């Protein structure tokens, strides 16, 4: 009877719990949730059991994040600082590479320089680089990849938002169209910045999820091979 319930739990909740569960509890926590879910489903119905599963999952994830931050606090802080340094290196590398390409192939003759920088270079700096940073903290903080990636994304998100506010209130840099007077120019320049500012923290978490997925698959393979 309880076997019929397997696969009837809310899939997103199951996936989320799997992402945050430390490897030493990877059997126990999802197994316990399924056991109680089956019990509630047979007594009160599937809808009630699903609601219970979601409630338990949210509370469990909150506890696992808090516990991860408590247990591996120094590792998470040092990996966050390391990832920020890596972010600066990647930022410098991207700028240097883009500069070399632009001057070699005279791209500025065909497109507007500010638009090129804001759209293409920022896509790499704000989307690809954060994914590497998220992956790096995930590699360092084994078993607590997601709490570490969330800490970094929170830090980067706040600092990026502050930077954006400072930029919007500061004077326009030389060579850029003024963004104080013309609303359209203002929107054209700030929109990609705004979008990438909110996407960077998400990309950091995606980097952490990728590392977590690879590690989970390795653990399963190790378990199967004995």
């Amino acid at each position: 009877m309880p076997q019929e319930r397997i696969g009837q739990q809310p899939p997103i909740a199951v996936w989320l719990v799997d992402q945050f569960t430390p490897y030493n509890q990877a059997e126990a926590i999802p197994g316990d949730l399924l056991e109680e879910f089956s019990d509630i489903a047979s007594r009160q119905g599937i809808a009630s059991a699903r609601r219970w599963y979601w409630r338990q999952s949210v509370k469990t994830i909150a506890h696992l994040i808090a516990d991860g931050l408590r247990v591996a606090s120094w590792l998470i802080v040092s990996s966050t600082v390391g990832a920020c340094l890596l972010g600066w290196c990647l930022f410098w590398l991207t700028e240097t590479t883009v500069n070399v390409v632009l001057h070699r192939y005279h791209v500025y003759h065909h497109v507007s320089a500010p638009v090129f920088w804001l759209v293409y270079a920022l896509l790499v700096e704000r989307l690809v680089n954060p994914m590497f940073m998220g992956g790096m903290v995930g590699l360092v903080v084994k078993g607590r990849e997601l709490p570490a990636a969330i800490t970094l994304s929170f830090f980067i998100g706040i600092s990026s938002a502050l930077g954006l506010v400072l930029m919007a209130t500061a004077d326009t840099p030389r060579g850029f169209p003024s963004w104080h007077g013309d609303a359209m120019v203002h929107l054209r320049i700030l929109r990609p910045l705004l979008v990438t500012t909110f996407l960077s923290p998400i990309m950091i978490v995606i980097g952490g999820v990728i590392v977590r997925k690879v590690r989970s698959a390795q653990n399963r393979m190790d378990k199967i091979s004995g």
Partner: protein
Amino acid sequence: MANRDHLGEFEHIVLLAVLRLADHAYGVTVRQEIEERISREVSIGAIYATLDRLERKGYVKSQLGEPTAERGGRSKRFFRVTAKGVSAVNRAQHAFQKMIQGLDSVRSYS
């Protein structure tokens, strides 16, 4: 001398639940025991975070059971209280009794 290995309130409750359940203590039963006895709704995550902490302190030991089909092929993680855990519970109980003695507004349950 200050004892840094003191038990927090929830740690104390979880240890007592594991002691009561003896050989049947795992996440589900510990959670249900606490809910039934003190009407406190707790999550599986809170139970495992606390049990993990207690294991690091040496108050409980855990071992995996056999995988079962009703759990999707996953094992139960059984816990038992160590001698160090029992003495920590006794110490906490003793401290409570000492503090309660002479307080007319608080009932003693011993």
